[in-house]
Every structure is written in C-alpha cells, then in structure tokens.
C-alpha cells in the first residue's frame, strides 16, 4: 500500500515546474527537434534566488520561432553536473544538444576534433531577422553591442565558435554601511586595499571572501596583468589585428609555451615570483576556507560576517531582491598595484577579466542530417536561424533582462541600472592571458590546488613555484603534441626584439 501511495501520480496543478521544456511530443509536421542548452540562468522553469517566478523568457522566444518555422521544435534542456564532462561524452557519442552553452575556452581544447562549428561566415552575413537598415541587416556581427569583448571569444585558430548574447563582469561587492562606520572608502590602489582589509580584520570581520577557483582564475590573471603589463609589446609575439586593441598583448597558449622556453613563468622569472608574493600577502584578509564546497560565500556577505565579496554581475539580483538585507552595498573594481607596492608594477588600471557570459556553441549534432557537409544540412539552417532570431533586440531583451544578472550584448537593449557599474568596467583593456581554463585542464587543477596549499602555508613559495614549473613542463609538452603547434616560428620575432628586451630589467636569463 505504501509503495502504491508513493507511486501514485500527484494531482493536476500540484506538480513542480518542469526544468527546460517538455520533451518531444511534437505534432506530426515537426521534422526538426532542436535541442538547446541555454545555460542554467535561462533554463525555463528555474526559479532564480530571491524570486518566486520561474524563468520563461527563452521559452517564449522558442514558441515565437516555432510559429515562424512550423516544422521545427525548440527543446530547452539542462545539463547534469559539470557541463564539460557531460558534453565531452555526449559529443563523442553524437548525442549532444545542437546548441550548448559552454565556456569557449573549453571549446578551444577540442577544436581539432571538429565537434564544433566555426561561425565566422554567419557573422559576416546578414541576420534575416534584423530590420532593414538596422544593425545586423548587412552583417550579423554589427548587432553585438560589445564587439571587442565578443571578439575575445575568438579561438587561437582564428575562428569564432560561439554567439555571445550577454556580458558578465566581476567586481568587489562591499558593505557600504560598514565602510562608513569604520571610516573607510573605496580603495584607489592596492596598498589602500590591503590597509582597508587590515582595519576590517581588526574589528573581527572577515575582510574579503572569494573561492579558490576564482582566486586561481581572476586573482592570478589580474595580478599577472599588473606585473607583466609593461612587457605587453615584448611578449605578444603574434599580434592579431582582428582581435583589435582590446586584446593587444593577449598571450595564446603557443606564445606562453615559447616564452616559457625562454625562462618566463619559471623560478628564474622574478615577475612570476612577484605574482605569488602579492597573492600571499593578500591571504590573511581572505576567509579561512577557500574551498566553497557546501558553503555559500554570498551568505557570509549578506549576514555581514564578511565585509567584501569578490563576485560577479550574476550576484546582483540576489542582493537587490533580498528583503532582509540590513545594509547598503556598493561595488568597486580591484584597484591597481602601484610601483610603491611592487617594483614591477606601474599602477595601470586593472583589466577586464569577464566578458562574454552565455556562450552558445553549435555542436556536430546540428548537422547530423548531413554529417559530411554542414552546408547542406537543413537542420543546421534552423539552428542558425534560431540563434539569429534570439539575437534580435526584442528577443534578447526578453531573455537577458528577465532578471538582473547579465548585460545584454545586443545593440538597442539597455541593461538594468543596477548593472551599469559593470558596463563601465567592461570598457577596460582585456587581460593578458587566462591561465585558468585556456591553457590545459590538468594545469588548471594543479594551479588551483597548489595555490590553495601555498596560500594556506602548506608549501613555501620556492616549492610552490617548483611544482608549477614541473607541471608547466608537462603541460607545454602535451599541448604542443595535442595541437601540433609550431613554436619555433616565434624565434624570428623574438630575435628581432633583442633591442626591446634591453629596456627591461629582471627578465629571465637576462633576456636572452
């Protein structure tokens, strides 16, 4: 009886909202069921934090598209667990969704396997859903509001593999009320930032909370930028004009490998040592535990146990919609490191570390009806058409502005006013490289783990840099083999820059 009771279906109207859209119970005229993974933020049925209304924006856009294309059904699906692990297995079996939201750096890891579709030719063609004369009517590319950060998703092979519907950026959320009470203000430079945290700590409050992955990702990249920025022209061995000034100085993995061979990012590189010194000096002002499994750093911030939270724009809605928030909050960006704090720094403004948020990539499943020739695939035409439809201003507005989380990347769609500060940050220069994500998956793991160990006094700086060096040796060898890279081609550029190198002190191997 108990079993029967447990298995009895719930009465109509009492069942929970379904995540995603209903599976394919499509009418007979539907020939194409497009599976679309919109990412966790836009998945229909998801109820955002501090809200009681399930997400429905993208489902409405899907319905409108189905009305235009009666032979097509758009099915929105979620991803179980870690997107990359799930995607790799489903892609290798040909069962992946047609469009998936995945960090483009993860796509770069596998571009040589031809799992993903280069979208360049579509970007350069008109978007048929753009109004005549409006942006996009000549080139789809013209519709994107932040073209420079959008271009930042270009893969090292020079192709664009994703459509970026929106932008994200990081920032330091701070307790304005507490700052006022303690007589503190937004810091103008790193020394002030450290000083502020010292004062907060003396009052028994955790100054800043950030998790270990974000620290290994954003923390390392921003500190790296501050220390290596003066060497930007010297180190950027393969300047790509297509990426523009925004990514001038960006180091792809092949450049990193060559520079590593020249002694950069090794124990012999004083700048590399300096990056870790700065992060270590920051450590006493971070939460005791950097590993967030099972914990919620935002909770520590809203309950005023922590004065600052290094987070991102997706966290804003939680603060805005919190009826019990007992303080005023503000936002600033990580301040620059000046020469007084580090002999290698110049006090240049901090760079952008965010950029493209929901990155929609077309997988090989989209042309499964014509596996050898995507151009002949009817299915792919509908997939591209839906992406084009999604990026019209009205549809982007419906999807992105349904919640206060991300900044629309389509011209003519304004972000929520609470996100405008992030808009300002996005105007800055991009990071010089992204050590985490773009380089090698095992390297990410080693960097994150060993950095945590180093910061928690489990290993000294000498040993830490040695461990990193050991793994960089392995990583560079593996990437060169996997990607079949020609590293030696940079030697000529390097030789030509011999004079330039003489201008800088503290280069590894005396700049040879």
């Amino acid at each position: 009886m108990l079993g029967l009771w447990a298995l009895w279906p719930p009465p109509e109207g009492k069942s929970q909202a379904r995540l995603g859209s209903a599976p394919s119970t499509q009418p007979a005229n539907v020939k194409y069921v497009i599976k679309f993974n919109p990412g966790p933020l836009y998945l229909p049925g998801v109820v955002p934090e501090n809200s009681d209304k399930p997400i429905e924006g993208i489902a409405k856009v899907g319905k409108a598209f189905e009305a235009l294309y009666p032979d097509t059904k758009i099915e929105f699906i979620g991803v179980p667990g870690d997107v990359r692990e799930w995607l790799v297995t489903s892609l290798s079996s040909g069962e992946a969704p047609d469009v998936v939201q995945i960090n483009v750096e993860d796509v770069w890891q596998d571009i040589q396997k031809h799992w993903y579709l280069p979208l360049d030719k579509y970007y350069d063609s008109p978007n048929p859903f753009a109004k005549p004369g409006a942006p996009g009517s000549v080139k789809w590319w013209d519709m994107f509001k932040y073209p420079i950060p959008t271009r930042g998703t270009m893969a090292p092979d020079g192709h664009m593999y994703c459509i970026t519907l929106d932008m994200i950026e990081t920032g330091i959320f701070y307790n304005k009320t507490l700052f006022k009470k303690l007589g503190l203000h937004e810091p103008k430079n790193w020394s002030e930032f450290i000083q502020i945290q010292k004062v907060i700590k003396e009052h028994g409050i955790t100054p800043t909370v950030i998790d270990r992955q974000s620290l290994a990702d954003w923390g390392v990249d921003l500190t790296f930028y501050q220390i290596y920025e003066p060497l930007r022209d010297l180190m950027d061995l393969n300047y790509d004009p297509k990426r523009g000034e925004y990514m001038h100085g960006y180091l792809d993995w092949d450049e990193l490998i060559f520079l590593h061979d020249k002694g950069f990012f090794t124990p012999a590189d004083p700048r590399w040592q300096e990056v870790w010194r700065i992060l270590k000096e920051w450590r006493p002002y971070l939460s005791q535990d950097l590993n967030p499994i099972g914990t919620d750093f935002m909770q520590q911030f809203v309950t005023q146990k922590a004065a600052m939270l290094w987070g991102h724009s997706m966290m804003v809605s939680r603060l805005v919609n919190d009826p019990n928030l007992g303080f005023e909050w503000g936002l600033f960006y990580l301040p620059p490191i000046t020469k007084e704090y580090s002999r290698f720094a110049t006090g240049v403004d901090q760079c952008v570390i965010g950029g493209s948020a929901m990155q929609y990539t077309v997988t090989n499943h989209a042309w499964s009806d014509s596996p050898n020739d995507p151009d002949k695939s009817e299915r792919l035409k509908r997939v591209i058409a839906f992406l084009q439809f999604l990026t019209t201003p009205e549809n982007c507005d419906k999807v992105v502005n349904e919640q206060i989380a991300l900044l629309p990347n389509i011209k003519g769609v304004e972000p929520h006013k609470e996100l405008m500060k992030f808009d300002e940050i996005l105007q800055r220069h991009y990071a010089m490289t992204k050590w985490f994500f773009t380089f090698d998956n095992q390297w990410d793991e080693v960097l994150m783990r060993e950095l945590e160990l180093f910061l928690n006094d489990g290993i000294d700086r000498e040993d830490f840099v040695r461990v990193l060096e050991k793994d960089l040796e392995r990583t560079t060898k593996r990437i060169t083999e996997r990607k079949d890279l020609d590293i030696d081609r940079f030697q000529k550029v390097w030789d030509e820059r011999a004079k330039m190198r003489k201008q800088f002190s503290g280069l590894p191997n005396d700049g040879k």
Partner: protein
Amino acid sequence: MTESSTPLSDTTDATGPGGPVLAYTTLRETARSRSLIDHIAASASLYAMLIPTFLLLALFCLVPFVIAIWRSFQEYEVGGTAKFVGLANYREYLFHDYTFLQSFGNMIFLTLFAVICVMIVPLIVAKLIFSLTSERASYIYRILFLIPIIVPNVAIFLIWRGVIYGDDGLLNLVSRALHLPLPAHGWFSTPSTVLWAIAFIGFPFAGGINILIYYAGLTSIPDSVHEAAELDGAIGLRKFFTIDVPMVMSQIKLLVMLTIIGGVQAFEGVYILTGGGPGFRSLVPGLWMYDNAFKFQRMGYACAIGVILFLLILALTIFNMRYFRSAEQLQGQTR
C-alpha cells in the same frame, strides 16, 4: 586419487604397446563426455535462464573491464584517436606522477583508519546490544543503529562539511561559544588537519549495517560454547576476547575486506569534502583516476590507474583470504 587425475595416467599407459588400454580410455572419455552433454541437456532450461544474467554481466562488467585493460596501454582521449604506448601510462603513473606517493599515502591512511574503526566500534556496540536481556530493547537498538543507512552518503558528507567547515562550522561555533581550548580554524583547508577531518566523518562510526553483521555473528555462536566458557571461568572481557572475537572472525574478515575494497575504490567523500585539496594533501588515487578520465580527457592513463587499483584490491583480497582465519577454520583447528 581424484577422477581428474585419471585420464593423465590412462593416456600415459596408452602410449605404451597395450592397445586395449587406449581403447578403454577412449571409451571412458566418450562416456564421460556423453554424460556431461546429457547432464547439460537435462538442465538446459536452467542454463537458459542464466544466460540473460550472464550476458548482461558480461556486457556491463566484463567487457568494459577488458576494454579498460586494453585502453590502459593506449594514449586515448575521448573523441580523439588511440595510440598504442605499451606500458608508458603505467610507467608515468608509478614513477613520474607527482600525485602517486601522496595519494597512495592518503588512501592507506584513510583505509587503515576505517579498518580500525570497523573492527572495533561496531563490534563493541553489537556486543552491547547482544548482551541486553530485553529482547524488545535489543530490537529497538538494532533499528536505531540501522536508521542512518537510509541517508544518502552525499547528504552525510555535506552535513559533516557544514559541521567542520572553517569559519562558520558548527564545531568552530561551539568551540568559540564555549571558549573551548580547541582552536577554531579551517579543518579542511589546513594541510595538517585535512586527512584527520576526512577520517572523522561518520564519528562515532557506530551506525549502519556493520553492527547487524557483527550481531548476526554473535547470535550464531552456539549456547554450548558460552556455557563451556563460563564453566571454565571465562567471563566479561576475557570471554569477549577469547570466545566472541575469534568466533566472529568470519564477520571481521568480511568487513575488513569490504572496508579495504571500499577504501581503495572510494573517492566521492574526498571529492565532496575537499576535492582532494588543499593542494593534493587529501587526494586519493580514485579521484585522480576520475579527474584524468573526465576532466583531463586522458582515458588511457585513467584506465592504467584503474588497473593498478584493481591489482591492489586483488592482492589484498588474496592476502586476506589466505592469512585471516575464519571462525570455521578456527573451529576446525580446535576439533
């Protein structure tokens, strides 16, 4: 002489000049084959019923197992091409992987800790329940100790994580509130305490099926043994160590073996609690295998780690079977 050794001697004889001996041997072989065929034919329907189970077992257990061994000799990435590399994956893991010693050390520590716990605490609790004079109370306690097994492991790990978590964990909050000498710190994030923090998950290690297994062992000890022991003056702790413990040796052996296998294979607890960190201070080989397979896409390398773990479990099982004597063997010795 057993029947199986007969054909060899018959065949040896048949090589000699005696023709009738050869004829006799062939006849006997044929008769035995026929009897085996007849036997199979008679039980055909029973064998047929076993086929689906066997096929599924082969499909989902044996075939992947063989493929994993084959893959361990390849450099293979999901979606990429496979390249035969011989023993390179094994060599790399055993001699060049910086996690090898650390992760095996961690695994041995956690497994030994679990083995010691499983040998002591549940046995004591089972003995206490067994010693209750009230049948009703004994039943209630058995149920109470069994209830925790309905909680999923992941939930248990997350609850414990909440208890031990650095800044605001229950342990630290209580420690601060009561001004205990226990210093409040990140138990999982401090390299020197992380393994102990993981090992103590599940404290006081008294819940679950282990108690029932020991309890079943204790109830199977014949009353005559208890009576004889008491007549010889063995009571209390002496009786426990000289009668109960040897008589539940089969259960101890089973639980030790299961704990070792679980300890070598396990990684979900470490994955949830620390992810193997800080650094690699709490990494176990199973987690590294998982990372290599699904995060780093080094499927061949992950298979090599898996094969090494399999060989380790096999060796430990053989060792356990050979050197841990069961109650039955002990009884056989005393007869």
